[in-house]
């Protein structure tokens, strides 16, 4: 990949270990993410990829390890701190607000930036009204960017899977994140939808300089769009490097061969 200036390390994960009861989901994992890069996490099912993202943005609390975000140490990250610090994410099993329209779902992404208090909202006073309009404009930009104008007012529950994934991305983008965590954004999509999604991810990365951490099973896609790849297996890190390096790594090859047999 060229054109972008990959910068300094922006996110650093040190010796992360996480377990659920007896299950060790992650064991002593360290890796880093540089500014503006696209960083992929791959690995067989149950390897701990989603858990890794959940640790990064504070959904799970690891028993050991620390997260350093732009030089700041987070001993115990939580979701709110993560959101404030500019992390946004999408979910493997779409976690949209299914009783709300597409527009409202995306508007929730602006929540952190909305300041009108509850009384101003109750009486729909100037500040509340202005704010609502201002953020609506921003959200409309994202809607245009992801080409979902036609479904604005539809409750998300009624949308087909591929579009729901897109709305999930739209909601994350509405936060104007610095780091975007994507958990299998293309799973279950057909080729055409995958191509669209790839294009969106690359555009986001390119136009807004957003750093992307991406979990994906489709090796073709991963090798195509990512700058560096981390490989997990049974909660352990077994590989880390450029796509070419990872592809040549014997541990990775055997993990994948082992997993497919």
């Amino acid at each position, binding site marked *: 990949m060229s054109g972008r200036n990959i910068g300094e390390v922006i996110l650093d994960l040190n010796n992360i270990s996480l377990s*659920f009861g007896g299950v060790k989901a992650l064991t002593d994992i360290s890796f880093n993410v540089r500014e503006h890069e696209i960083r992929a996490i791959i690995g067989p099912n149950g390897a701990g990829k*989603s858990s890794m993202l*959940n640790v990064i943005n504070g*959904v*799970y609390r690891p028993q050991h390890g620390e997260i350093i975000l732009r030089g700041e140490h987070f001993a115990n990250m939580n979701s709110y701190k993560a959101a404030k610090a500019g992390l946004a994410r999408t*979910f*493997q*099993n779409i976690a949209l607000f299914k009783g709300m329209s597409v527009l409202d779902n995306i508007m929730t992404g602006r929540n952190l930036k909305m300041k009108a208090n509850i009384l101003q909202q109750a009486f729909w006073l100037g500040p509340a009204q202005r704010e609502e309009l201002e953020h609506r404009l921003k959200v409309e930009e994202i809607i245009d960017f992801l080409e979902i104008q036609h479904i604005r007012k539809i409750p998300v529950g009624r949308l087909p899977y591929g579009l729901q994934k897109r709305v999930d991305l739209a909601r994350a983008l509405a936060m104007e994140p610095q780091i975007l965590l994507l958990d299998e954004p293309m799973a279950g999509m057909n080729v055409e939808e995958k191509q669209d999604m790839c294009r969106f991810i690359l555009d986001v990365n390119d136009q807004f300089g957003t750093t992307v951490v991406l979990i994906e099973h489709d090796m073709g896609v991963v090798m195509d769009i990512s700058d560096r790849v981390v490989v997990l297996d049974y909660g352990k890190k077994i590989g880390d490097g450029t796509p070419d390096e990872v592809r040549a790594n014997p541990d990775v090859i055997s993990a994948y061969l082992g997993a497919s047999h």
Partner: protein
Amino acid sequence: MSFFLETLLGGLMSGMLYSLVALGFVLIYKASGVFNFAQGAMVLFAALSMARFSEWIPQWLGMDNLFMANLLAFAISVVVMFTVAWLVERLVLRHLVNQEGATLLMATLGIAYFLDGVGQTIFGSDIYKIDVGMPKEPVMMLENIFEGGILINKEDFVAAFISALLVVALSIFFQKTATGRALRAVADDHQAAQSIGIPLDRIWVIVWCVAGITALVAGIIWGSKLGAQFSLSTVALRALPVVILGGLTSVPGAIIGGLIIGVGEKISEVYLGPMVGGGIEIWFAYMLALMFLLFRPQGLFGEKIIDRV
């Protein structure tokens, strides 16, 4: 000292009854994820059925044998409770599979209202007697240990004994029989259980039947003490904090929780009540459960769950 012991024993005995009702909650919750608010209505319904049939049968058959009348009434009431269980599965639960807990809870609230209405329409809404020959007179115990001994109500004693027996029987049923194992499989994982060929609908009918039986026994015990009357339907509300303490998914939790609440209620009422004007046993258990929730949301024995995303 002997007064304290009396209070304690009284608490333990009413606690045993709470355990019984709580067990009904836990069974249904484990097998179907339903928090059965209608458990109290089932107790009332069963008690009314028992009371009225034992009154009607001698009239219909022109006989005068109390034992036979009770036996027949009991048999009929069992059938009635089974029918209720079957109808609940057919008409309600089956259509609400995979709904959220709160929705199911509200549905059982609907069932509770419906049962209360039907029960009183069919059986009437007065206070009816249930006379299964429970001993009424109090007895003295441990006279050689304490001065004056301690006074115990034989009726409470028998009631606690029967409840304990049923609780033990159900635990064995759960642990040892094939049906019990299937029930536990369903409780652990609905989908997995279904995929190995355990019929969910049948399991549900069975747990509701079992819950119906616990309701019937509780109804008879309480009914013979207080009369079969509308206020019986509130025992479920009294037993609710029990399952919170014990954890919704734990049978031993239900039993121990029941005892704790029974004792806590009695002791607080006797020692704390007079200070604040009495009548506190109604909310005391709830406050206890609430405090507890704040520190251990999953209950004494329930397992902690971290949401997957």
